[in-house]
């Protein structure tokens, strides 16, 4: 019964949609790493900030998460710019241990702030009930999953297009390659770094809003997601934007199949099995390069 094509298709589709959220989160993390050489351990907390903003807006002013989404992205963008200006900028050019320590500290600070404000209780934003029935394929896709997945994918591809084709996106790539030469071209490197961190934070915030309609979450959820993000990055290739997208989708897919065929506990561990597998067979990641590629 499990091998029926409709079941396989169902698993594949819901896996890809879940994976799109990983991709959105991981691509932001990857962008910061590619441009600043900083591994932002607080990236998961930025996502949870987005989730709680979504929850607050739903609970107290009855705003739909999809309405809140652009506002949260704007807020997180601003927060990201300030973080970069006041904190992360001081870390560029330092060794990785320093940036790991500082962003780890930031992560702990933000998480405990969350615990203080919201307690460790799990929350959720129960909008978008039920599912879409695709009669031609005879499958049902849950509405939250479909919406969150589609928006995640659109945002990730949108940012990719921005980096590829927009003047400022190209400047971000230039700074990630050769900051000094970028300066000579007239690019204000500090500003570009702020923009980069802002974009990554906005992506994390968006992931948080979408997370809030998919799963229940607490201030401690960020850490779990971040761990999976690292698996995604290594699977896809550190610093490679498309690699992170691919890695995220792949992880979602594998989790869905393992969850479908075995059980959900195994699905939680499969990210790390995949990680070990990739490290054994292709240590640079699937689209691995030694440098950042957008």
């Amino acid at each position, binding site marked *: 019964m499990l091998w029926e094509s409709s079941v396989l298709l169902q698993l594949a589709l819901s896996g890809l949609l879940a994976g799109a959220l990983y991709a959105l989160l991981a691509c932001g993390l990857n962008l910061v790493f590619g441009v600043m050489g900083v591994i932002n351990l607080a990236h998961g907390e930025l996502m949870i900030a987005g989730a709680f903003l979504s929850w607050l807006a739903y609970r107290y002013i009855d705003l739909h998460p999809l309405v809140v989404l652009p506002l949260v992205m704007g807020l997180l963008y601003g927060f990201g710019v300030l973080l970069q200006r006041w904190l992360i900028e001081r870390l560029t050019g330092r060794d990785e241990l320093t940036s790991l320590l500082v962003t780890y500290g930031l992560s702990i600070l933000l998480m405990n702030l969350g615990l203080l404000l919201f307690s460790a209780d799990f929350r959720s934003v129960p909008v978008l009930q039920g599912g879409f029935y695709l009669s031609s394929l005879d499958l049902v896709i849950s509405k939250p999953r479909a919406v969150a997945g589609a928006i995640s994918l659109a945002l990730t591809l949108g940012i990719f297009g921005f980096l590829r084709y927009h003047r400022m996106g190209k400047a971000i790539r*230039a700074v990630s390659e050769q900051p000094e030469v970028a300066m000579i071209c007239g690019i204000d490197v500090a500003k570009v770094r702020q923009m980069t961190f802002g974009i990554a934070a906005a992506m994390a915030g968006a992931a948080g809003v979408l997370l809030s309609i998919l799963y229940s979450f607490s201030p401690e959820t960020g850490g779990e997601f971040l761990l999976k993000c690292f698996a995604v990055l290594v699977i896809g290739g550190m610093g490679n934007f498309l690699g992170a997208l691919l890695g995220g989708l792949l992880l979602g897919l594998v989790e869905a199949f393992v969850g479908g065929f075995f059980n959900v506990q195994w699905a939680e561990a499969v990210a790390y099995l995949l990680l070990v597998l990739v490290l054994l067979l292709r240590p640079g990641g699937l689209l691995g390069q030694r440098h950042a590629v957008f």
Partner: protein
Amino acid sequence: MSAPPLLHLQQLDASYGPIQVLFSVQLEVQPGEIVALIGPNGAGKSTVIKSIIGLVRVLRGQIRLAGREITGMATHHAPLHGIGYVPQGRILFARMTVRENLEMGAFLQQDPRERRRLVEEVLDQFPQLAARAQVLAGHLSGGEQQMLAIGRSLMMRPKLLMLDEPSLGLSPKYVDQIFAQLLVLRDQGHTLLMVEQNAARALEIADRGYVLELGRNRFADRASALLENEAVRRLYLGGV
């Protein structure tokens, strides 16, 4: 020398971190000329250029461009002041295409149509690059990379073009090509300040030259006179 110099360094002291590298350096570049800055390794030649565009800290002294003081400017303002710079080792954005590299050279041009026009202009001037516009810069040959680095620095139509070791690591064929290109640029009215290890070649195409030693001015003269100068020949041109 009646016209005011385009570039004027007065009593320039500069340091790399705690180490002072330049001591009271004097230098002038007149509009439309090629000036070669030569000297042995560690003389501080590159430092002179880097201190002009703010990549190295100036301790004392003045840098004037067309009469305006630009000492210690922010590096990303260089194109605004009309300074183009070709870094040593022809550093490109290797994972961007030739066209994108040129676009970055015109980053400050906000209007996309105008930017495209500038790109086409430079591609017209370097037909070799035009044929490879969509190729990643990292895949170009050494000579093509140097052409691209020069092309990128020309994008904002600089008043002053500074080149750091343009012939370094190039095969003789490409060295000829690059130096020929520099002469073309001068004939088009560009002003060039060039740091060059290959002193003899540099002085052959230059109008004037400065010899730097241990961060201090040693000789300054017309290029042809420096080529004839006994001491310069013995010390820096490997001649007898």
